[in-house]
């Protein structure tokens, strides 16, 4: 049986791991390669590296980091942040990333999704969508959630699927950093309306939140950062809790 995935997310800035609370305040949580190795041994199913550097050296730094992670880690990982071209994706996949995640660049140039899916296969193209509710409507946001767009979350998600995304990483900006739980209603709607896997992100605070996002939110995977980085939740304990709630997990 296909299991539900638990995915720690490592925010990377200039080669170091950071975690933003509501994407604004940053705290250092260690060396990415070491942390990745630790998480793979702790039972993480997959890892996401999100690069938030803004330097000119960022592409090269990220490509080198991917190579170091691939050398050490025996579980799959996804790389995102600032990816905007076929060349960007090519070097990351060649260096050992399993999937790439694109976000703002897909909104600015939706054809990029088609091009990447055609060249590399849809299974390695994750489209990340950040959204929050404005007057009751879920609107897609860019630049780490700072810039609103006119796009409706569900319309955009459907378009992304049609263009060839292999899965969607949905971050609710309303929930991110709150530790009050995932945006399960929106997640369930995405899961029902689309036929590709949905990763839930934003709002993890307790183990029960993960149970809820798999049961009520119908998510295929759940991503979190600080609850793992600061050891508020151990992955093994979380998976035992999920299994106790009849949610299939790899243990």
């Amino acid at each position: 049986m296909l299991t539900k995935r638990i995915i720690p997310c490592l925010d990377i800035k200039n080669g170091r791991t950071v975690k933003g609370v509501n994407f604004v305040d940053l705290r250092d949580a260690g060396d990415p390669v070491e942390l990745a190795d630790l998480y793979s041994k702790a039972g993480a199913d997959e890892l996401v590296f999100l690069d938030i550097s803004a330097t000119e050296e960022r592409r090269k730094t990220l490509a080198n980091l991917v190579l170091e992670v691939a050398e050490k880690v025996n579980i799959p990982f996804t790389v995102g942040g600032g990816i905007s071209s076929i060349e960007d994706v090519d070097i990351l996949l060649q260096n050992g990333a399993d999937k790439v995640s694109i976000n703002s660049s897909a909104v600015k140039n939706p054809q990029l999704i088609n091009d990447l899916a055609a060249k590399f296969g849809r299974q390695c193209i994750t489209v990340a969508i950040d959204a929050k509710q404005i007057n009751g409507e879920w609107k897609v946001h860019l630049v780490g959630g700072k810039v609103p767009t006119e796009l409706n979350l569900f319309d955009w998600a459907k378009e992304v699927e049609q263009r060839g995304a292999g899965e969607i990483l949905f971050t609710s900006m309303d929930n991110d950093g709150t530790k009050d739980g995932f945006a399960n209603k929106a997640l369930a709607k995405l899961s029902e309306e689309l036929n590709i896997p949905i990763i839930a992100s934003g709002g993890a605070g307790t183990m029960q939140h993960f149970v809820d996002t798999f049961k009520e939110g119908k998510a295929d995977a759940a991503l979190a950062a600080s609850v793992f980085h600061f050891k508020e939740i151990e992955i093994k304990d979380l998976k035992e809790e999920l299994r106790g709630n009849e949610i299939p997990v790899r243990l």
Partner: protein
Amino acid sequence: MIPALAGMTDKMKIVIINYGAGNIQSIKFAIQRLGYEAVLSDNPEEIKSADKVIFPGVGEASSAMKKLKASGLDTLVPQLKQPVLGICLGMQLMCNYTEEGDTQGLGIFDVNVLRFNHGVKVPQIGWNQIESLKSPLFENVEEKEYIYLVHSYYAPVMEETIAQSNYGIAYSTALHKDNFYGTQFHPEKSSVTGERILRNFLNLSTTN
């Protein structure tokens, strides 16, 4: 078919066929973690002289097949005599045919690869379990251990199936015929279970 130590020396020559199909660095690193070195190559002589050959593949079937044909590897691979392991799309291309891009395969495994169409999300991404294990490839691997998969197409269960998984239906997660092996899952990404399977493949007798 008995795993033998023959050929399993420090000098074992492992070649990963490099035809421009995706994430082969991870396979090279996985082999490195087991204490061996693998060479990436598209050179027919080098591939023929290897003790073990790994035939990877990520991406879309018809374009991968075009790349194989352009380099003449489509005729070379079926003629190889040493143990060959096809991974993911590599395994699918070793079959007769795949619905993806309406593509003729290498015809090593006598089966047609079909698209998932059983009320499940496509692609399947994540960790599933392997069962009905029947091959030295799975020595010291328990029934229902977890392996990592990313795919939209599958090989149905047939005579050459040596492991199966369930995703809407039961399907082949590994195939074996003569010196040819194929895994739908990624052993290089399947944690310690994958490492054991990869090690079992490297331990196969070269004259298998």
